[in-house]
C-alpha cells in the first residue's frame, strides 16, 4: 500500500551548506494497520509525509502508494490518499458542509453519492450541529472534525496523519485516536506520525523511529522491545536517539 524507497531530500541552505532532511528513508505499510512514524522535532517526519502526499518532491528515491509513483503520477496518488496535518486548516468563510462538499467534488464524486456519503459522515462524526457553522467560528475540536471528514470523504484506501493531535486537548485528541482506530479496523492503510509515545503505543502495530532524516529502527513494537531490551517505548526511543547522536558526533570528529 505505502512503500517508501530510499527517500532523500536535500535542501541547499546558504548557512548550513546542503542540509539533508531525509537520508535514504525506506519503509512500507500494509492495509489494515497503523504504521507509526516516530521521531523528535526536526527528524524529517513532516518532510517524509509531505513527499508521500506529493506536496514536496524528493531529491532522490521515490515512493509507491497504492501502485502509483509519487514523482511521476502525483495526481493519481492524491486521488487515493487522505492527508491531515496540524497545518491543514479549514476555510474561514465556508461552512462545514460546504467545505466537505467542495473537496468531495474535487475528488470527483458525483452529487447524489456525495450527498449520501456526507450525511453518513456527518452522522458518524457527530457533526450535525456544526453543519452550517462558518470555519472562523468553529472551535479547535470542530475544525478537526471537519478536517477528518474532508480527508475521508472520498473513502481513500490510504490515510496520512502528520502530528494531527498537535495542540489538541486530551479529550479531543482521544476522540481523534478513536476515529483512527476505527478507520484501521475498516481496512485502511494508515501512516501516523507523532512524537508522543503513548499515542504510538495505543494505536500502532509497527513503528519506524527516525532521527536526523535516517531510519534508526523499524518493526513491530513487541519485537523492538525485545531487541533493545527496553519495555518502555519512550526509554527505547531515548536510547536509540542517544546512540545515534553519539555516532554522529564520533563521525564528525573522525571525518
Amino acid at each position, binding site marked *: 500500500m505505502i512503500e517508501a524507497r530510499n527517500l532523500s531530500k536535500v535542501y541547499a541552505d546558504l548557512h548550513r551548506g546542503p542540509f539533508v532532511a531525509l537520508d535514504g528513508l525506506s519503509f512500507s505499510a500494509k492495509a489494515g494497520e497503523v504504521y507509526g512514524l516516530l521521531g523528535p522535532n526536526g527528524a524529517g517526519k513532516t518532510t517524509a509525509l509531505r513527499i508521500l502526499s506529493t506536496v514536496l518532491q524528493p531529491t532522490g528515491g521515490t515512493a509507491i502508494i497504492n501502485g502509483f509513483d509519487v514523482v511521476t503520477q502525483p*495526481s*493519481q496518488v492524491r486521488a487515493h490518499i487522505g492527508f491531515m496535518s496540524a497545518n491543514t486548516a479549514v476555510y474561514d468563510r465556508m461552512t462545514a458542509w460546504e467545505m466537505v462538499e467542495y*473537496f468531495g467534488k474535487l475528488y470527483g464524486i458525483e452529487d447524489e453519492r456525495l450527498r449520501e456519503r456526507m450525511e453518513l459522515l456527518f452522522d458518524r462524526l457527530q457533526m450535525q450541529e456544526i453543519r452550517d457553522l462558518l470555519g472562523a467560528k468553529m472551535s479547535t475540536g470542530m475544525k478537526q472534525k471537519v478536517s477528518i471528514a474532508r480527508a475521508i470523504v472520498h473513502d481513500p484506501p490510504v490515510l496520512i496523519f502528520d502530528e494531527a493531535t498537535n495542540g489538541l486537548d486530551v479529550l479531543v485528541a482521544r476522540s481523534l485516536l478513536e476515529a483512527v482506530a476505527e478507520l484501521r479496523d475498516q481496512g485502511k492503510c494508515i501512516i501516523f506520525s507523532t512524537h508522543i509515545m503513548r499515542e504510538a503505543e495505543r494505536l500502532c502495530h509497527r513503528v519506524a523511529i527516525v532521527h536526523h532524516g535516517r531510519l534508526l529502527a523499524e518493526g513491530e513494537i513487541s519485537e523492538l522491545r525485545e531487541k533493545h531490551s527496553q519495555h518502555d517505548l519512550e526509554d527505547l526511543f531515548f536510547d536509540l536517539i542517544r546512540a545515534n547522536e553519539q555516532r554522529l558526533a564520533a563521525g564528525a570528529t573522525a571525518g
Partner: protein
Amino acid sequence: MQLKNVKLIYLREMRDQLRDRRTLFLIAVLPLLLYPLLGTSFFQLTQFLQKVEARVLVVGTRQLRGADWLPPLIQDNRFDLKLFDQPEWHEKIELFSPRDFPELADDLRKGRSLPVPGAAPEASADEAAFDAAAKELLDSGKVEAVLVFPNGFEERLSDVRRALVEREAADATAFPEPIILYNSADDKSQVTQLRVEQILRRWRNEVTAENLTASNVPVEATTPFELRPRDMAQMQQRQAAVWSKVLPFFVFIWALTGAFYPAVDLCAGEKERGTLETLLTSPALRREIVWGKLLTVMTFSVVTAILNLGSLGMTGKFVIDNLSKSGAFGQAAEAMSMPPLTSLLWLSVALVPISALFSALCLACAAFARSTKEGQYYLMPIMLVTMPLMMLPMSPGVELNLGNSFIPVTGMVLLLRSVIEGQYALVLKFVAPVMAVTLACCLLAIRWAEEQFNRESVLFRESERLELGRWLVHLVRDRQATPSFAQAALCVAIILITQFFVSLSAGMAGDFDFAFLAKALLVSQLACIFAPSMLMTIMLTREPAKTLLLERTPRWSHLLAMVALALALHPVVVAGANQITKIYPVPEATEQIAESIGSALDGAPHWLLALALMSLLPAVCEELAFRGFILSGFRHVGHKWWAIALSAVAFGLVHTFLHQKISATMMGMVIGYIAVQTESIWPCILLHTVHNSLQLSAHKLAQAVEANPESPLAFLLGGEAPLLYRTSTVLICAAVAAAILWSLHGVRYSRTAEEQLEEARQRSDSPLLGA
C-alpha cells in the same frame, strides 16, 4: 486539465470573496459613492470659481476723456462692453482710480509721470514711490492689475491721427505707452492681465479703424485679408479624439488595481491562512488551481473597471449637463460630452484580454510572495512597469505601427484608441501582432505562477537571510552542469544592457566604410554577445562543453542536411520577408542604413572577408550564446518548445531593426529545434552561416546577372520575376525544408531532468475519473 475542476475552484473562490463584506464594500460600493461625491465637490467648486472678480486700478484716464474722437474705453467704472469677446466678463472686471485708495493716492498718481522708454534710465524717487505703492496694492490683493496711461499718451495718439489724416510724416520719436502692472505669481492677477491686454488690443484696433476712416483709407489697409480655419472633423470625431486618449488609460488602471488585491489575497493570503496545503493535497492539478484563481481575479478586474467606468460616466453626465446649462465654461462644455456608445462597447471588449494580462501578472507576483505583506509591496513595481507602458501612447507622435504593436500593454492601448476613433482598417492590420503578444505574455505569466505553486521554498514560507557574499560563493561553488533558467534569463538581460550601453557610447563615424563596419560588428558581437555568455558559462556551469553543445560530434548527414536546409529556406525566407514588408513597410531611415551597410560591404578588400564578417562571426557568437548557454538554461523549464520559443524571442530581441527582429525570431525557432534534436552546435553554426551568406550574396548575384545576362545563374535570378522567388519555387522549397526538419523528428536526443519528469507524467498521470 479538467475544466470541471477549474470551474469548481473558481466558484468557490468567488463565493469566498463575496462573503467578505469589507472587500465587497471596497470594490463595489466605494466607487459608486466616490465619483458622485467627487462630482458634487467639483460642481460646487466651479460655482465658487465663477464668483471671482478682477479689480483693476487705472491711472491717467483724465487725458482720455478730453479727446472726443477716441472710441470709448471706460464707462461707469467698467470697460466698454463692445471691447469684450465674452460678455460675462464685462461685469467681472471692476475699475478703480487712485482716489479709491486714499493712503496711496499721491504715490499712485505719480505713475502719470513715468519716463518715456528709451530715454535715460535714471530711477527717480517718484518712480520708486509709484512702484512701491503699486506693489503694495498687488501683493495685498486689493487689485489684480494696475493700468497706467502716462502723460503725453493722448497727445501721441492725436499726433498719429493728425499725421494720417493730413498725410504728413510723423516724428518717429519715442512716446509713452500704456503699462500694465501685475503679479505673475498670482493666478488671478495673470488672468486679469491677459484680459486687460485683450481689451486694450481691441481698443487699439478700434482707434486704428477710426483713424483710417477719418483719413479715407479703407480699414482693410491694415488687414488685407482674414484667415478662417474650418474644422472638417465631425463632432463625433472630435469627441472621439478626446475620449480615445483618456478612456483606455483610466480603464486599464482600474483593471490593474481591481486585479491586484484579490490576487494577493488568493495566493499569499491563502498561504498564510494554512488552507493552501489542504488544497495541494487534493487531486486538483497545480494548473487547475492557477486557472481557477486566475478567473476569479479576472472577474474582479473586469467588474472593478466596469463599475468605476459606469459610476464615473453617470457622474460625468450629470456634471457636464449642469455645466453647459450654467454656461460656466462656455464653448468648452459644448465640446465635452459623453463618449459615444460604440467606444464604450469596444472598451468592454478590450477589457477581457487586458484584464487577463494584468490578472496573470498580479497572480504571478502574488504566487511568488510568501506573505500578504510581501505581496502588497509588489504593487509598486507592477505600477512602475505598466504605467509608462500605458502612458506612452498619450504622447504625441506615438501611433499604431508595427514596432509599437509588439510592445505588450502599449500596443493594446494604441489599438483601442484607433478603434474608438473609428479607424477600423488600421486596427485590422495590427490586431494579430497585438493579440499574439498579449496572449504570449499571459501564458508566460500563468506558467510562472504555476511554477511558484510547485516551489517549496515559496510554499512553506521559509525565510532566508540575504547574504550576498555567501550567495555568490554558493552560485559558483554549487554550480550545476548546465545553467539554470534564471541564469539564462540573466544572460539575455546582460546582453541587451551591454548592447544598449555600447550603442550609446559609439559615436557616429565620419566615414561609413568597411573598416568602421568591421569594427562595429566586432565590438557588438564579441563584447556584447560572446563575452557575457562565455564568462557566465565558465563561472556558472560545471560542464561548459555540454552547455555549449560542443560535446557531441555532429553526424555528417546532419551537416549536409543543414546546407540543404539553408538553400531550401532561402526563397521561403525572402518571400516571407516580402510579404511582411508589403503589409508593414520598412521605414525610410532603416532602408538608408541598409544601403550604407551595403555600400560599405562593397568596399571590402575581398568578398570572402565581407562574408566572414557578416555571416561567420555573428553565427559563431550568436549560436554559442543563444543555442548554447541560453537554450541549455531555458530547457530546465520542462518543455522543449517553450525553451526553443523563449530562446528564439531572446535571439530576435538582440537584432537592431524591427524586420530583422521578426525574421530572426522565426529563424531562431528553426535553429533552436535543430540544436535540441542534433544536440550539437555545429549544425546550427553551419545553418546560420550559410543562411546569412545566401542573404548577402543573393543581392550581389542578382546585380551581376543584370549586368551579364549570359551568366549561368541568369535562369535562376534573371528577369522581372526571377525563378528563384516565384510562388511555385517557394512552395517546393518550403516542402523540402519541412521534410528535412521532419526527418530530425524521430532522432533520439537527451532530455533534461525536468523534461524527463514531464514526459513521465504525461505518459502515466492521466486525470482521474471518479474515486
